Structures are given as C-alpha cells and as structure tokens.
C-alpha cells in the first residue's frame, strides 16, 4: 500500500515535474527570444562618404573608385540579386527617389552594393540591370570583397546575415550630400 501510494504520489509529482519542465523550457525560449529579439539600434558608424572603402568593381567588370564621386550627391543601398522579397522594394524606392530628383533637377549617383559577392558577381548584376531596366548611367551596381562589404554594412548600419543561399536583411537607403556628409538614412518598410 505504501508502495502504491508512493507510486501514485510519484506519478503526480512526475506530472508536475513534466509541466514544470515544459514551463521552464518555454520560459527559457521566451527569455532567449527577448534577449535576442530586442532590436539593436541601427546606427551608422560612418557619417562621411570618404570613410567608406573606395575600391569596388562595377557591373561592367571595371574598377570603380568611390573617390571619383567626391563632390556629388550619392544615394547608397545594399541588395542581393536573387532577393525577391526586400530588394525589389528597395529598388522601387530608389526608382522613386530618382524620379523625385529628376523633377527637382537634382543630380545624384545611385550605388547598390551587393551583400553577397560570392553569389552576386559582375555577370549577376549585369543581368539584374538588364532584366529590370535599370540602365541609367548614374546607377552603379558594385561588387566588393567580403571584408569590404561587411565593413560598409557595419559603417552604414546595414544589418544582414547569410544563411545558405539566402541573405537575411532589411531594406535601407542612405544619402550623402555633395560634401560627403551622411544626411539621410531611411528604412525601407515597403509593405
């Protein structure tokens, strides 16, 4: 009888323990999510165009030196060629900006830096431009080294991470004025 009581007690205790375990796991998951999910403030560490790495390759395969753009207004964003969710929104946003600039008579250079130089090479960007009719000469799609891409992203507050063939990222556009000073930084909410 004593044994049976103990067994019953044990079963009840086990049920409680199982519940407690599950609750603890869920609590731990929530804690982890809270700890990780609080968005870190996105801030640009570089506020001057001259601080960005200068040497890139454009979608024609030619060396592209950012210093050639000193003294001009520059609109800059980052993208990857096989992105079909966020990057099309960013590109649409850039097109709208270009139209606004055209209406106001503002001259600007549009730079799109590839997040993933391993997947998005010169040919990929060339194809991207052709497919989407992004053929204006003041638009430049740039390929860099992985280190330079990560550095620019860090400097300008573009947060991204690569997972398999996907690049997980948000949409963001920054603008430098003619003095090379960062004057605007917008998230592309898009939706």
């Amino acid at each position, binding site marked *: 009888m004593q044994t049976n009581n103990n067994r019953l007690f044990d079963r009840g205790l086990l049920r409680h323990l199982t519940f407690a375990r599950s609750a603890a796991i869920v609590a731990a998951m929530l804690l*982890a999510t809270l700890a990780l999910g609080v968005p*870190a403030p996105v801030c640009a560490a570089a506020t001057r165009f001259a601080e960005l790495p200068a040497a890139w390759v454009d979608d024609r395969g030619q060396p592209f030196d950012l210093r050639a753009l000193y003294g001009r207004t520059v609109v800059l964003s980052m993208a990857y060629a096989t992105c*079909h969710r966020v990057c099309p929104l960013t590109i649409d946003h850039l097109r709208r900006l270009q139209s606004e600039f055209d209406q106001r008579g503002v001259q600007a250079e549009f730079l799109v830096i590839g997040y993933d130089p391993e997947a998005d090479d010169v040919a990929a960007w060339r194809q991207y431009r052709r497919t989407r009719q992004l053929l204006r000469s003041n638009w430049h799609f740039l390929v860099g080294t992985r280190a330079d891409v990560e550095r620019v992203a860090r400097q300008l507050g573009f947060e991204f991470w690569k*997972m398999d063939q996907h690049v997980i990222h948000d949409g963001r556009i920054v603008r430098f004025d003619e003095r090379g000073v960062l004057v605007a930084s917008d998230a592309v*909410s898009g939706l």
Partner: protein
Amino acid sequence: MRTTNYAPAMCARAWLGAVLATGLGLTPAARAAEDDKARIAELEQKLDESLKMIRELSHKVDALEAREAQRTGAAAAPAAAAAAAAVPAGAAPVTPATAPGSAAIAGPAAPADTAARVTQLEETVSQMAANAPQHPEDRGLAMHGFADVGAGTHNAQFPQYQGADIAELDFFLTPQLGAHTRALFELNFEVGANGDVGVDLERAQIGYQFSDALTVWLGRFHTPYGYYNTAFHHGQWIAISLRRPRFIEFEDHGGTMPAHTVGLWLTGSQRLGDQKLTYDAWIGNSQRITGGTLDMNNAGVPRGSVMFGGNVGLLMSGALDGLKVGVDAFQTRIENQDVAPPYFTQVQSYGTYAVYDTDRWEDIAELHFFRNTDLTGHTGQHDSHAGFVQLGYRAGRFTPYARYEKGSFDQSDPYFAAQTDGNSYDREALGLRFDIDLSSALKMELAQTRFTDRYVTSYGEALLQYAIRF
C-alpha cells in the same frame, strides 16, 4: 499515426539547449560589444571636442598672425613673395579644405600642419570605429533565428492533433571565423509527435571556402538532393508555403527521404558565360530506421556503410533569367533496426528539378525516382517515385500559392514499409502568404490529403501559421 517517445535524455537535451540558447543571448560577449560601442562613442566625442578646440586655436592663431602681419606691414611682404615663388606651379598642398568630402570638417583657413594633424586624427578614429566591434557578430558570435506558431483543424505535421500549436523556435549561430572558415549551427526547439518540446542540433557544419568554386563542409548538413531540401530549412518564414512537401519533410516529421547527412560536403558554383553551374558532392554516414523513423546516425555508423551522391544545377540567364534546372542522385544502405536481426536495403535515388524564381514567381517542381534493393530478404528491386509542383505568385504583401504532391511507394519495398509514414499518398493545397512586415508573415492553407495503399483514407485541413524571423 506514429508517435515518438521522447526519452528522459531528450528532456535533458531540451534543458541543456534552453540554457545554452538563453546563455548565448546574454553572454559577456554581448555586453563587451556594448562596452566597445560606448568606448567608441566616448572617443568620437573626445575627437569632436579636440577638433573644436583645434579650430578655435587655429582661428586665434590666424587672428594673431593677421595682427602681426599688419604690425610688421611692408617689411614682411618681400619675404612672403619670395616664399610663394619657391612653390612650383600646380604643386599647391592639398588640404582638407580643398579635398572633397573633408570640407565639412576642416575650416577654410586652417594652416596646413593643423589640417594634416586633424586629417590624421580623423583617419585614426575612423579606422578604429570601422575596425572595432559594433555588434555581437563582430566578436565572432552571430545568432539569429526563426519561429512559428499555428492553429488548424489538424496539426500541419502531426494530423492526429487539432487546435493551436507551437511548431518550432529555430536558432541560427553563424560565427565569423576568418576569411575562409565558415560555420553554421542550427538549434531547433520543436514539438514532437507526442506533443512534448524537444531540441535538436539540426545542422552543425564547419567548412573551409577555398573560392566561390569550392567550399568543403564537414558535419551535419541538409542532404543536397533536389532543390527544396537545401533552399529551405526549419524556419518556415523563409518559405512561401506553410509546410514542406510531405515526402521531403524532416525525418522526425515523417519525411521518407534522408533530409540530413553527417559527413563531408563539397559545394560551389562556376560561371559559364552568363549562366551559372552549381554543384554538390557529398559522402557521409548511411542512415538507419529506428522507431519507424529515419535517423542520420549522428555518432557514426556501426558497420561502416556510407551514403554518397551528387547534384548539378544550371542557373539560366537572359530570357530565362530566374530559371534553374538540375539533376541529382544518391545511394545509401539503410539498416532497419526495428527488427532483429537488422534488415538492410540499398536505396538508390535519381531526381530532377526545375525552379523559376523571380520577383513575381516562385515555382518549384521536383521528381524523385527510387530503385531500392532488398539486401536481406532478397525480394529483388522495388521502384517507387515521388514529386511535387508548387506555383507561387508574389503580389505585394500577398503571395497565393498552389501545390500538388504525390508519393507512390512500393509497400513491398522494405525501406518504405519500415517507415511509419512510408505509405503512398497525394495532396492538393491552396494557400496564401500575407507579409505583415519584412520579418513576419501570416500563412493560411486549405489542403486535402489522401492515403492510397497501406490504409485508405483522406482528410481535409484548414491551417493557419504565424511565422517570424529575428
């Protein structure tokens, strides 16, 4: 329906995983990054103050020099003229005042040496800021993830349940280890068939990237057959649809193909003009069947048998931009440990796939053929096949999709007969993905599933899923 018994060891793993996940999110590394940010901010503030002071001093020096020049008057003029004559034409020193991009910092009248010092100081701090860690990622720790919850007339993975469910919480750790070394760890908390939460190290792979054309991975990875198994993973946010096709579900969710392999994986791509060739080749532990479920033998195989395979794809360009076609094949020897003595089957799979992925369309089709040989009972060869077609159309926030899938598995084949979910079936599904914002999506799906041989039955489903990434 199959039920998996989560042993106490699983609970212990769950605890360990939960503690790990929580700990990783709150490690001193994260706090150290905050400290560094504060330190950089402080340095930048000091620099700004120094620049301000230098500018003020420069102005004072200018004013003093101007007064001195006025006082000395004509006596200094010949000397200045001589000095100007000594500088060759076109060799004027470039000061920050004349250099584009620096005009905002240096005052127009700053003397050359002061300007040079300012420039040097500025570059130093810029480099420090650029090189110093800003985020936990920069300290070698990057952690991201996905999660989804849902509700429905059936559970999307375990149809014996209905109502609301938590599906999974999937953590990704992608530490940055240098220019060539890569690592990926995926820790997944998921509900099992018995309704308990378990934890699995879904992927644990460390690799070396020699070039774009070759990366070598060692560890546990998604077996690179077809397209879907490597393009999509445990976090459902990334996929348009609400769940994977049934036959390529993960092993513990009833998948009948070996979704994971523990071994060596070579992968890369090579341009062929505007087109791109992708390839995968892998060799690893052969799988086993235990508890009616495929298992990838994480610890190794007792009898040394291997799985090996390859996948070649071609990414088109021009008018066919967004289209990828490919073929794959693998062979493995599966040990069924649910019977004594163990039963062995040689599994050979040949697949083909086509994907059309553009800003508007995401269409995927896969077909797999199996020619399996009974190595123990000598019942000969058995042919089976499975495939699916999925069409998705992106229209702003909304992405409607449709999918048809079918698995026709020979039930006299010991490989499929031994698996709890190895029965033949077909399923139609219509769904809608609604992107609430860039990191969360709501998905709805109506589906009809028919089981056609081991037991003949069908059921309809109305499913809802809320998926996020972080």
